[in-house]
């Protein structure tokens, strides 16, 4: 019941839905940067949606299992192969023991999430199996996977013992499984510091295009483009920040925070990308372009509720297939 990594790729780590409840101690959320993609992939393989999977950055991963497993992935535009057969995003398939699963380089986007029936059996540290890469704990030895690593898989869930022909009908729609978008428009709600920026700056923020800088990582996406300066450039007292927060240091270059971000920050928060768009933000890579568009908090919540009720229908549909 193990997985063997022959090639770990650029950056592959064990992640689940993240580590909540420890922010007061300064512990980051970590977890899949696109939690929704991992949830969908988990449902496709018959897992509980909170099971730990792999987050694969820029591909290059090759792995095989000691026993037969069902796998599915969601995320950027990756070429994923089993032998000479390609496995499209959002489709469940059976992977025989010792058969190799191979992630190529993405055409669009940079991350994908692989779910394996039974889940990755990493120890639970502070309530989560996620790897905290910044602090080096959790997941697989607190670090990214390396060539030659062997990790444990959980027992396969009993709910999924369908025939192969049935598995092929287990698929998720494209907007859920292929989340990378070229020049995306990320929707945001206003941040607490919105009013500290003058009209010209706000106009820039909401109308111009920003480019993703090379020093972006799981902590945040650094953006180049129009500078968002404040008239009164004083630092604010540190308070909570969260994935999705767009903070603006005195350089005027905004930073969009992702799952590994710090728990507190003193930079002005101009805006927050809404939860349903965080998966799109997780695909941004150096050189990509992005725009921002304002929505109301009520709309942010409505969009989230709609997506969750769609996911509920999807979950019911899958469970009917499995019987």
């Amino acid at each position, binding site marked *: 019941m193990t997985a063997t990594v022959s090639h770990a790729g650029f950056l592959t780590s064990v992640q689940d839905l993240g580590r*909540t409840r420890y922010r007061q101690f300064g512990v980051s959320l970590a977890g899949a940067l696109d939690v929704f993609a991992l949830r969908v992939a988990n449902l496709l393989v018959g897992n509980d949606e909170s099971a730990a999977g792999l987050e694969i950055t820029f591909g290059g991963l090759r792995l095989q299992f000691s026993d037969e497993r069902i796998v599915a992935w969601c995320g950027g535009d990756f070429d994923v192969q089993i032998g000479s057969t390609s496995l499209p995003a959002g489709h469940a398939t059976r992977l025989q023991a010792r058969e190799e699963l191979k992630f190529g380089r993405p055409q669009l986007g940079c991350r994908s999430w692989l779910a394996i029936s039974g889940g990755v059996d990493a120890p639970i540290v502070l309530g989560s199996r996620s790897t*905290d890469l910044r602090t080096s704990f959790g997941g697989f030895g607190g670090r990214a996977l390396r060539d030659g690593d062997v990790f444990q898989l959980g027992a396969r869930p009993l709910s999924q013992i369908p025939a192969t022909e049935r598995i092929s009908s287990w698929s998720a729609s494209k907007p859920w499984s292929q989340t990378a978008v070229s020049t995306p428009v990320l929707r945001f709600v206003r941040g607490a510091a919105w009013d500290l920026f003058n009209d010209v700056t706000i106009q820039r923020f909401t109308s111009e295009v920003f480019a993703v800088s090379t020093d972006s990582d799981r902590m945040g996406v650094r953006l180049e483009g129009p500078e968002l300066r404040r008239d009164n450039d004083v630092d604010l007292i540190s308070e909570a920040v969260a994935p999705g927060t767009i903070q603006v240091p005195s350089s005027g270059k905004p930073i969009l925070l992702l799952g590994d971000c710090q728990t507190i920050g003193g930079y002005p928060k101009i805006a927050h990308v809404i939860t349903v768009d965080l998966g799109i933000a997780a695909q941004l890579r150096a050189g990509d372009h992005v725009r921002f568009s304002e929505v109301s908090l009520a709309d942010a919540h409505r969009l989230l509720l709609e997506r969750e009720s769609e996911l509920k229908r999807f979950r019911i549909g899958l469970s009917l297939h499995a019987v």
Partner: protein
Amino acid sequence: MEIVPLGDSALIVRVRERFEDAPDQTLSEVLRTFRRLQDTAIPGVIELAPAYTTVAVFFDPMVVANAAPKPDQALDWLTDRIRAALAPHIRGGRGRAAASPVRLVEIPVCYDPEFAFDLENVAHHAQISLREVVDLHSAVEYRVSCIGFVPGFPFLAGLPKELATPRRATPRKEIPAGSVAIGGAQTGIYPLRSPGGWNLIGRTPLRLFDPEKTPPAFLRAGDRVRFRAITRDEFEALAP
């Protein structure tokens, strides 16, 4: 007190506008707010995070929408619940929550030059001797105003004014775990090897963050802290 959104899944309860004016009082008020919200257990609230003047309330919008009379009133409903939980406190009542004990924690620190890369810089800035820096730093009582930056990092208020030293122009890429440092008007301890721009004046053998422990951080917001100067030998004896 104001309650403002932090994105679509969190709110920030701003207890006071400023911190520096009355750090001790502000901190006590923030912690009272934190404890009251913790005791109230509002449906959908996942966790709370206090920092200086605020308490952040992280929630699951789905649960809150279900608990609210109408889904589109989720945020108003949650805000009302928070206000209700804090109401007696706002009226200035000194309820039982106010009397929660505050821990006094002693942190042994070795101010040996081997660990205190920037002690001279701090002394030079304050125009006092190295000895006086150490004496001043270990003579007063501090209070943890916030835990953050990295897991378990305590931001301590109460640094003697003479010791306030600007952060280094170029942050160090790597600071050893346990380093005790001064950044502006605050002092703190790096729990883990990490980058940082504060002036290093000593090192503690204590482990300030351990994910295998509950709670994982040695210190928490509100703790009172004293530093005790120790020798290099004592440091070795105490180191794990």
